């Protein structure tokens, strides 16, 4: 089946199998391997991307469901070589260790800050409950999101 998407600002058209998952499309067809697969069952959130601005778990959507959509992955977040405040915040506050959950975590936080630009620590924790991290114990992730919230203003 043919799908048309705008991926990280670039229009593209691909012929995909109906059963191809969105995450496989991103990783294997578009070659964007920054989106990771952690559980295949929508629990861990490593595969989180923004679909028309909404955070979705790309392991449980078919690529064909994204037809006509705008998709933002971690690779599209920095603009003109400048890190997004969330990326900078994760760097400044040691919000990552192995980095595997990080792209999904950052994109989930992106949605969180759009909905609530000045979240409390509790709200950050609640807002990121769909994303698992096994390395950090989450505290530095909370600080990273606070850093970004302050930066964005």
């Amino acid at each position, binding site marked *: 089946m043919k799908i048309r998407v705008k991926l990280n600002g670039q229009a593209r058209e691909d012929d995909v199998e109906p059963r191809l998952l969105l995450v496989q499309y991103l990783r294997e067809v578009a070659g964007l391997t*920054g989106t990771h697969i*952690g559980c295949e069952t929508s629990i861990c959130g490593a595969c989180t991307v923004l679909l028309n601005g909404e955070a979705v778990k790309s392991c449980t959507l078919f690529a064909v469901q994204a037809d006509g959509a705008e998709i933002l992955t971690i690779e599209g977040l920095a603009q003109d070589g400048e890190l997004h405040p969330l990326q900078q915040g*994760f*760097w400044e506050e040691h919000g990552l260790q192995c*980095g595997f959950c990080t792209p999904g975590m950052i994109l989930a936080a992106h949605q969180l800050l759009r909905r609530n630009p000045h979240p409390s620590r509790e709200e950050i924790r609640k807002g990121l409950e769909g994303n698992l991290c096994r390395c950090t114990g989450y505290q530095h992730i909370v600080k990273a999101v606070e850093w970004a919230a302050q930066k964005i203003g």
Partner: protein
Amino acid sequence: MPTLLGERIKRKEDPRLIQGRGHYVDDFKLDGMVHMAFARSVHAHARVKRVNTEAARALPGVIAVYTGADLKGKVGLVPCAAGMEGLKVPEHPCLAIDTVNYVGEPVAAVVAHDRSVARDAVDLIEIDYDPLPAVVDPEKALAPDAPRVHEKLADNVAFVAKLEGGDWKAVEADSSLKVIKQRMINQRLAPVSMETRGVIASYSPGEDTLTVWSSTQIPHILKTQLALMSGVDEARTRVIAPEVGGGFGSKLNVYGEEGVACYVSKQLGKPVKWIEGRRENLLGTIHGRDQINDLEVYATPEGKVVGLKCWIIADLGAYHQLLTPAIPTLTALMIVGSYNIRNVFVETKGVFTNKMATDAYRGAGRPEATYIIERAMDLVAHELKLDPAAVREVNFPSPKEFPLSLPTGVTYDSANYQKTLKKALKLSGYAKLRKEQERLRKKGKYIGIGLSTYVEICAMGPSSRMPAGGWEFGAVHVDPTGKVTVLSGTSPHGQGEETSFAQIVADGLGVPFDDVTVFHGDTFQVPIGIGTFGSRTTAVGGTAIYEAVLRLKKKMSRIAAHKLGIKPGELEFKDGKIQTADGQKSLSFVEVAGEAIFAKQLPPGIEPGLSEQCVFEPSNYTFPFGAHVAVVEVDAETGEVRLRNYYAVDDCGRILNPMLVDGQIHGGLAQGIGQAMWEEHVYDENGQLVTGTLMDYAVPKSFQFPWFDTEATETRSPVNPLGVKGVGEAGTIGSTPAVVNAVVDALAPFGVKHVDMPLKPEKIWRLMKDGVKA
């Protein structure tokens, strides 16, 4: 002189990772690469009568299907490195041959052009089983008439290890001692690194070389083992650990799937990729913990613990993985904790069951020891109606007693347990908390305060005590441009040593931090190494680099002194220069690099080039320690436990980068608290895994934790010149008993003196409702 050691410096690793530009195994695509998937046993124990692969082979896109019979004698067995007296080692083929011994055991491998087709083909493989009785409960497995996991073995006991020290006759004759007995269960856990396992094996028939990308913590050990398993000359085998998405011990191993991948690539002459699914990960990647501990504590009326006896039943699972039987023996080694207990008896029985193997999971045997001894201290306090903090203080050795040799056979390097406890009590407002507790109890509200004053054994370790060498390799090269390359035989996978190692080197050479690049994880680039586990990377690997820097400085000083016409001893390395103390005479770092490498007028006896290395052999382990305080609220209506506060004062020796230390502590706390509160890997009575997805296995989430209040003390280790100890596992080791002690403390008015983990609401609610049966 300002130093980079101890500075909070942002990580060199992060720019690639926060932009999705790092490369984990699954991110590599090789020309002609094919994909592999495994058919796995659905039975805990069964004879394999027939494996019909016809339909799978017939599926378009399938290249080959292999069974255990196909691989028999052609691929080596899955190795176990732990050598112990009398250890029974069952044959562990990469693919099951006649029998399957746990749910998830690989039985057949499918290779296809496409990953999805390989998985489709797995479903077409028909395996006829003849089910056998499953051995699930390790205690029942000890019965003389219990069914056996391995028919060829006489019983289900893999080993019995005894550790005994002190004068037990005297202890047992002393009728003034109080004897406290308790059984504790340390439940099975799943490590759950966010990246599952994965491997690409690529054999080139022309060159006869095997290149393997594996999500591993031990590329060099894996290289040796895969060369042995595949029959490729080790010199022509290369293992690359690319970006690794967490390990926690689960990737300190050699797995059957890796052996199969190498064999298949050799057969087909093509690169073969296998990426583990999460269900496979929960079934077939090693599990952690799983011990039954029967404890006897001998204490004086003042709370001084004179002796400790423990009988350990360790559930090993069906086969030995790399270190399976060694892990529970670490429990015995650390059972006295931070207390000067002079009489010890531990008997450890390793038992086979029809489950996945247990092996190293963050802490690996030491969390169990810490749990036993820290619960024991609270049991003594409870029995003698003493404050748990006071009981600990009575039993601490004084800081002057270090190095302290214990009847467990280990010598603790350095410590000040009084200091960390004092700091933790102050940080938590302990005295106030006790008053609050009393006040709330009168209102029918129950808070609990739990202590843990742990010590752990890490920086693994002296080679004499390790199964495959405990040294580490470090090398430092200076290029003609003055840039510095560092090679380490360790294999960090999130801990941040690309940063802390660069701090050591930039600090030593007086060059900009940005001019130093650290490489690890490729056996063709780093000639030898052991890896990252047992909180050893900085203490052993970092020291190797530190020593290589000293050697390099010595050489550069001689070259610079020769050029300047002075004595080498007068020179210091500072701000990119090599200069006299008064700064009057100097050469730039780049100039000296040029002198050394272009070798126009070197002093006599000096070899050209600037490349030094060190293989550091530690003289002892190191023993980090700390004091943790957990504060919980238990809901009397629902039995739900809320962790209200967590205070941690940790001493990991000298701190090189406080930000990284905090990160390690936090992550460790999350896993240790996870065990206490939520995590449990459950098999049913038939040996079926109940918690086989992340919907069932409770990996903790962000909102479940309070803010961690952390502080540090720094007691340097005399074992290495940096004075560092290690911090990778401390949080996990220290935190579990603090939380359980807090909950038991909260339930004291109900007569509760022990609760087994995880602290589920139902369990707590029943205890509060029914009380404890006498």
